[in-house]
């Protein structure tokens, strides 16, 4: 197939499906979308065979795909296909039609962002992807939906304008590029270049959910339909945001070490702030939403560090995150669809009722917590190594700075594990409330989707080097002119798997040999414990919430002192109030304004 045609199809096929979907009933919508997205996966396969595709119109290059683009495209198609499988049955009936209309549309515009070489097309597709996010947010059914949709789009749509400013400024900083995104290479040596750099950083951070523009992610995760939480903030928006960041770091800008360190610091702050917030959540989706932010921190650290190994690790972490985080969202979604709740205080003991979902959730939780041999460990480990390597060439002061960031990141990983123990315990373990005794396992499409994602978690963990790194990520490095990185330590996933298996087997042997377990009812004051004394998974973490120095931090966070959206709106409304004081409706005052205006003009002309 002609490569430039593939590029058009990547946008046109899902777009056509969306157009068709506006006319047909939900069942046909599902059929069309399923086959359409399956077809785009085939297209990606063809692109792999012929990777240097581009499409021009007159003297403008509109679409190009390079290795980085291809890498991101592949995962956009894969994730949207798997999440679609989950959505085939069990969507919220009220919004099913709209959801299935928006779904292929979103895939089309996200593909459009990645393949656009023309700056203006890139801006348009980027804006459309933000619009799609807003429309998904409006489909939510919770009481906070209107608020969340508004917040989401103000942050995302607002950052788009900065993207426009930044890219246009870059276009004129480097004339002669004819609106090509890939031809730009800006050195930060004047104010406008700095403004452009910061603008693009704002856009990338807002989209991916980096600190301090992350606050829409937890809210969106809580209030939007759960499929769209897995689809957008956990997968596609991460891919787009980090794609932009990777482009900035590889071709768009030439930045110095201090700036690299600043970005690494922002990443580390993202990790630690978000994970601290995640720990104290009582709403399962919000917890996952905060983790979706916290994991972005690792990607930002990796990609922003400027070290090849960490860069590759950042890209690897990106896809790992999209896989395990959508897995976790969907697993929670399965639970929610069976029980009607996502409140960690209410749920409990569902492991026996929903064993498949439980296993998938465990795999997802272990991956995100960075437990070897799952995929999350491998990419985090690459990032840590990259930071150590980066530290070699720094001055002592910078080394200490970097070390602090590294410690924060590692600490964040430990807290992630803590937080997911709570998540697993609160939903699947502990005593099951009586009302959930008749719960059954999730539908076949749901555990099939989570199963596929879990399989990917294991596959990418065990064969990290062979499949994702060598096949997908190393070509990106080669194309960007980087060397293939060398690993510092030795880590062999299969060996680790072997060791873990041996340890596990030994454990089972010991258990069987000394099997002496007594099952009893819980008693409280000599009576069988009542339902209301059930110990929930969130209970232990109230200690952390009330710990001395942390308490102030959490109180401030709950008052939204760290939320840039909230701070911005307070500032805006106070300024608005100030201006409104100047408009009390008095005619005399208004005429005075006119006279002052006329006088100023006359003085200027004098």
């Amino acid at each position, binding site marked *: 197939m002609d490569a430039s045609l593939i590029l058009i199809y990547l946008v046109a096929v899902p777009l056509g499906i969306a157009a068709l979907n506006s006319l047909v009933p939900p069942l046909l919508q599902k059929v069309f979308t399923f086959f359409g997205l399956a077809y785009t996966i085939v297209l990606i396969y063809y692109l792999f065979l012929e990777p240097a595709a581009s499409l021009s119109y007159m003297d403008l290059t509109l679409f190009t795909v390079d290795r980085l683009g291809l890498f991101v495209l592949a995962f956009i198609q894969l994730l949207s296909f798997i999440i679609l499988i989950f959505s085939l049955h069990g969507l919220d009936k009220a919004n099913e039609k709209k959801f299935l209309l928006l779904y292929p549309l979103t895939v089309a515009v996200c593909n459009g962002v990645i393949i656009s070489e023309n700056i203006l097309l890139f801006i348009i597709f980027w804006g459309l992807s933000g619009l799609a996010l807003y429309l998904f947010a409006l489909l939510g059914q919770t009481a906070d939906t209107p608020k969340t949709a508004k917040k989401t789009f103000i942050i995302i749509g607002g950052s788009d304008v900065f993207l426009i400013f930044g890219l246009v400024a870059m276009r004129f900083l480097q004339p002669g590029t004819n609106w090509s995104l890939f031809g730009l290479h800006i050195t930060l040596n004047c104010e406008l270049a700095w403004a452009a750099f910061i603008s693009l950083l704002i856009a990338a951070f807002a989209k991916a959910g980096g600190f301090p523009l992350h606050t829409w992610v937890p809210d969106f995760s809580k209030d939007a339909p759960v499929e769209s939480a897995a689809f957008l903030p956990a997968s596609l928006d991460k891919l787009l945001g980090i794609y932009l960041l990777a482009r900035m770091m590889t071709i768009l800008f030439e930045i110095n070490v201090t700036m690299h360190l600043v970005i690494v610091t922002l990443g580390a702050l993202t990790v630690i702030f978000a994970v601290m917030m995640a720990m104290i959540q009582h709403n399962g989706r919000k917890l996952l939403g905060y983790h979706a932010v916290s994991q972005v921190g690792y990607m930002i650290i990796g990609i922003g560090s400027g070290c090849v190994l960490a860069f590759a690790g950042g890209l690897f972490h990106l896809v790992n995150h999209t896989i395990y985080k959508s897995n976790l969202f969907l697993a929670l979604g399965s639970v929610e669809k069976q029980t009607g709740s996502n409140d960690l205080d209410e749920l409990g003991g569902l492991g026996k009722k929903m064993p498949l979902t439980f296993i998938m959730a465990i795999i997802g939780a272990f991956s995100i917590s960075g437990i070897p041999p799952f995929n999350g460990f491998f990419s985090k480990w690459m990032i840590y190594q990259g930071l150590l390597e980066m530290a070699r060439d720094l001055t002592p002061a910078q080394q200490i700075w970097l070390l602090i960031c590294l410690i924060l990141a590692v600490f964040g990983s430990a807290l992630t594990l803590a937080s997911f123990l709570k998540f697993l315990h609160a939903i699947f373990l502990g005593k099951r409330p009586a009302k959930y005794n008749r719960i059954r396992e999730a539908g076949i499409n749901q555990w099939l989707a989570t199963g596929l994602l879990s399989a990917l978690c294991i596959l990418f963990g065990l064969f990290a080097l062979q499949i994702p790194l060598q096949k997908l990520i190393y070509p990106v490095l080669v194309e960007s002119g980087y060397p293939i990185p060398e690993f510092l330590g030795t880590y062999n996933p299969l060996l680790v798997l072997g060791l873990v298996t041996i340890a596990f087997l030994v454990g089972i042997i010991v258990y069987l040999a000394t099997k002496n377990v007594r099952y009893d009812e819980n008693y409280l004051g000599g009576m069988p414990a009542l339902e209301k004394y059930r110990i929930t998974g969130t209970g232990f973490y109230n200690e952390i919430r009330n710990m001395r120095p942390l308490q102030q931090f959490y109180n401030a966070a709950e008052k939204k002192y760290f939320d840039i959206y909230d701070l911005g709106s307070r500032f805006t409304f106070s300024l608005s109030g100030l201006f409104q004081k100047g*408009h009390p409706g008095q005619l005399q005052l208004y005429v005075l304004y006119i006279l002052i205006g006329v006088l100023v003009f006359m003085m200027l002309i004098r």
Partner: protein
Amino acid sequence: MILPLLIIVPLLTAFLITFIGGKKDTAAVILTLFAVTILLCMSLYSFIITGAQTQTYQMSAWAIPYGISLVLDPLSGFMMVMIAIISFTSALFSIQYIRHLQQDWKYYALFMLLLTGMNGVVMTGDIFNLFVFMEIALFAAFGLVAFGGKAEEYEAAFKYAVMGSVSSTIILFGIAVIYSATSSLTMSVIAQRLPLLDQKMVLWVGGLFMAGFGLKTAAMPFHAWLPDAHSSAPAPISSMLSGVLIKALGVYVLIRFFFNVLGAPRLFLTLFLVLGSISILVGVFLAIGQWDMKRLLAYHSISQIGYILLGLGLASPLAIFGAVFHMFNHALFKSLLFYNAGSVELALGTRNLKHLGNLSRILPVTSGTSMIASLSISGIPPFNGFFSKLVIIIAAIKTGHPVYALVAVVGSLLTLASFMKVQRYGFHGEKIIEKTVNKVGWSMNLAMICLAVLCLVTSALIIPGIREAIMDPVVNVITQKSQYLHVVMGR
């Protein structure tokens, strides 16, 4: 000749309505609809056949410089099309909307007079004639603002009348100075003679006109009349005022006078830039704090006019294209937003955002079109507002004014925020509203759908090819400053 007809038709309709519409209001409705349809066809036709040419018409066959001439160049034609589209949809929207206010015929008569005034202003080649048409439009507007008959509407109309008269006085003063210096009122003759005169005097007249027409445009600090007047008027009139009146009497005259007559002096371009930026920022800050939907929209008119002035002040062909394009787009989406507010007010009896909720079930057309309009004004692709703002930002950076580009960026962000507020409280709020006071009829829905479709379709004006055919002649009139004088005098 089609030129005088464009003024005669609405004027005649206005008088016909007063003669025969007194008893039967339906006659007034039919006459108005008939007239606006004809005007829409005629202005489209004249815009298309004019192409890049200029037509002139000498009234009573008195040649320049003795008589009054009408001039239809691409810019005037473009303005006529804009006025015709908005007045057509407004008339459509009024059929049901005005019924609850009684004495429809008076409304329609004033409506046609408003139209007469605007058409006259954009077509006349004589500056005093322009003043007269402007006053016709303004007096009709004063009446229409007060048409609801409530106390605050009279108050708003009164304020509007006082401030309008102040500005008219300033303008008349400027015209008198010009007449005494050049002995002519024909704009092309003035343009010819002004370069020979004392430049200080020329700048002084410019200052007077800047203040006078700045007030009609509602640029800061001459904006204070607008929020009261535009929010008190009946919804279709608000959309006429915000959508086209401030542009026909304000922006258009500023362009005509400062570019074609004065030849765009540097000082005034800088003033355009500064006033534009202040209007963008202060307007949007004032808007975001409002809870009355129409008042919020009215403040946004100030802010959006700022974008137009910014584009004009940058004065590169691209920037002018952006300004003209944005002017047209703003007419479409702002009128649509006022229709939305009107239909909400009619259906629920309130336009206070705090009392609204989820309207998507009871008013599907209104909430759907309001979403499109909100996205357009916030500059979200693929709607028209995105492209015109994009062009203005590109032009600002290209001409070496990145700070003004940043002003546009921040303004756009805050515009988005305030329209998210409108959507969040007004159309997709928590409270699900089940009952309406009045039903929104088909004519109102049709008017809203027309403009919503146009909000999407006019994005095509950016496409190379279409842009050259439609927009470039308009932009050329503005950028080739003295061309106007040669073309008009050439006949």
